[in-house]
């Protein structure tokens, strides 16, 4: 008896699936209730995450807000926005939260300007004068590196040029 019931239930479930499949192929699919709830929850989740991310950026990188609003100078509300962003930026600077970005930028600048001689990895650079030093050391950091030619000053990265000469006008037109 229970087997017959189970079989019937299974059959009904299959029929429901076929019906849903047909419906899906006919056009707009109506979602089951749990999927709708799931979508609503995830929508709220992402929206909150986006707002929170915006807040973090506005707090720690308030300088970018000033740069952005300065680009809106010709806008009717531009001057007010500039004033508000500058005030906000000053406030963040007073609270010293903008130092995080400055600190990272400083560290990156150091890494960018580093030369091979600077990469000692904590090893003794006087290998040449120290015959006792392990043989592997000179391979990592040669005691006497060939003199490097004068490097050009680091140039601020500029807008990437187009790969070919033909399309340059279009790229220059980009906002």
């Amino acid at each position, binding site marked *: 008896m229970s087997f017959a019931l189970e079989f019937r239930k299974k059959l009904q479930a299959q029929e429901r699936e076929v019906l849903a499949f047909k419906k899906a192929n006919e056009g707009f699919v109506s979602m089951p209730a749990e999927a709708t709830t799931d*979508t609503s929850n995830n929508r709220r989740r992402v929206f909150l995450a986006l707002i929170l991310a*915006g807040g973090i950026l506005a707090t720690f990188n308030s300088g970018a807000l000033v740069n952005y609003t300065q680009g809106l100078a010709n806008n009717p509300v531009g001057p007010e926005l500039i004033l508000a962003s500058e005030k906000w930026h000053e406030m963040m600077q007073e609270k010293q939260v903008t130092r995080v970005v400055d600190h990272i930028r400083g560290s990156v600048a150091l890494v960018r300007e580093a030369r091979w001689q600077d990469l000692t990895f904590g090893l003794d650079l006087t290998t040449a004068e120290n015959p006792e030093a392990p043989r592997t050391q000179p391979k990592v950091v040669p005691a006497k590196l060939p003199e490097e030619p004068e490097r050009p000053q680091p140039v601020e990265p500029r807008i990437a040029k187009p790969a*070919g000469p033909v399309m340059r006008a279009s790229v220059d037109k980009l906002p």
Partner: protein
Amino acid sequence: MLFPTLDFALFFLVVFGISWEMRHRPEPRKVFLLGASYFFYGYWDWRFTALLAGSSLINYVAGRLIGMSANERERKLLLGVAVVLNLAILGFFKYYGFFLDQLAEMLQTAGLERDLPFLEIILPVGISFFTFQGISYVSDVYRRQIEAVDSPLDVFLYISFFPQLVAGPIVRAADFLPQLKAEPRLNRSLVSLGILLILLGLFKKMVIANYLAGELVDQVFFDPSMYAGPDLALAIYAYAVQIYCDFSGYSDIAIGVAALLGYRFRWNFNQPYRAVSLREFWRRWHISLSQWLRDYLYKPLGGGRGGSFLTYRNLFLTMVLGGIWHGAAWTFVIWGLIHGTSLAAERLVLSFRTAPIPAPAMAVAGYGSGAMMPPERSERGGFMSRTFGVLVTFHIVCLAWIFFRAENLEFALSYVQGLANWSQPGQFTSPFLVLMVAASLGAHFLPRGLVIRTAKALEGVGSIGLGFLLGFGILLIQSVAPEGVAPFIYFQF
């Protein structure tokens, strides 16, 4: 509008909020997304929205007419007219100046100088991508792979949907149109994958591509004759990394943004520099374009059906035309020639092997929630032969990149010549740049599916955790990245 800008962030916040509020009303939602896409496109130059609408209209009408007609000759004629119209628009904006230049030069050489109707033509951003999508739609309707769509809204949105509008991936109608019919859903896997891909794409573009472009590639390619072998070698490796990070970064952001709106796109890149052969490279690089060229150019030319000679010819022609698609310049033609010749040579060499050649079918991504990654392909052969294959393939690709990137043919040849001169030490071989190039190339050999697995791990993270991840992730990228916002390389195509 560029992805890594505050303008786009504000735009997306509004679109995200409103579009999900409208999820129970599909038609108004589509109208809203269409309006948002035209705003996105018109933000660059509003005049070109008319061109986008015109192109969409041509393809919608052609699709309808082909769908309604039962006469094969009539269907073929309609398809021909639609393809010619699409290519005429593309050709006018992309090649008019080039052909007139060439004509003027020829006339001058023959002593027949004339005043030619030169025009100052601005190439509309993304024209190739939306033209290709239009051709793909009418061709698929003609081949009866999809039904012609009744609603113009669906076709207009398919062609102009903003995440993929200006630089791909080239989305197939068969993949996208059914998604417009279903009520959009946002599950945890789409959310985590979307956010992860946006962060990954921003990092690739804003940090790696921008640094390499600004500090090395642009300077060396500006005048290659000024530099010796070490700098030229590093610069070409750096360009290989730059173009990959620039383009795949855009694709990652596009896929991520679309995922957050409830739409799935296929992967466009899959660790291309780990390919052991050129054929594998093209299965991993710009997958949507490779598949497009295969289905709408290589196969209509005859594909591999007409014997060896015709197969080589078709392969060769496909790559050369693919090169010309990138732009009207001899450097792009040579880029296509290098790839076409190498692919044909590789096929010839492989044909002498006793083992059967792997099927040429492209890796196709699944469309399940966790199956957006192309399927794993077995890399045959031992470690040494695979390493050899990777090195040879990578260097052929790099050689072709020289012509792709060089300002003109003269500069490209000077670059190749300079690669043999190792008499001077490098000026740009700083640890920062060398390690950046090495790490970026090394990342190609990380386990496949790492992104998917990481996204899976993020599925359980709540809104606060996601907000912190996104906020501090972007903050770190902004702090590390060089100043300024550079346009994506592929915008010009």
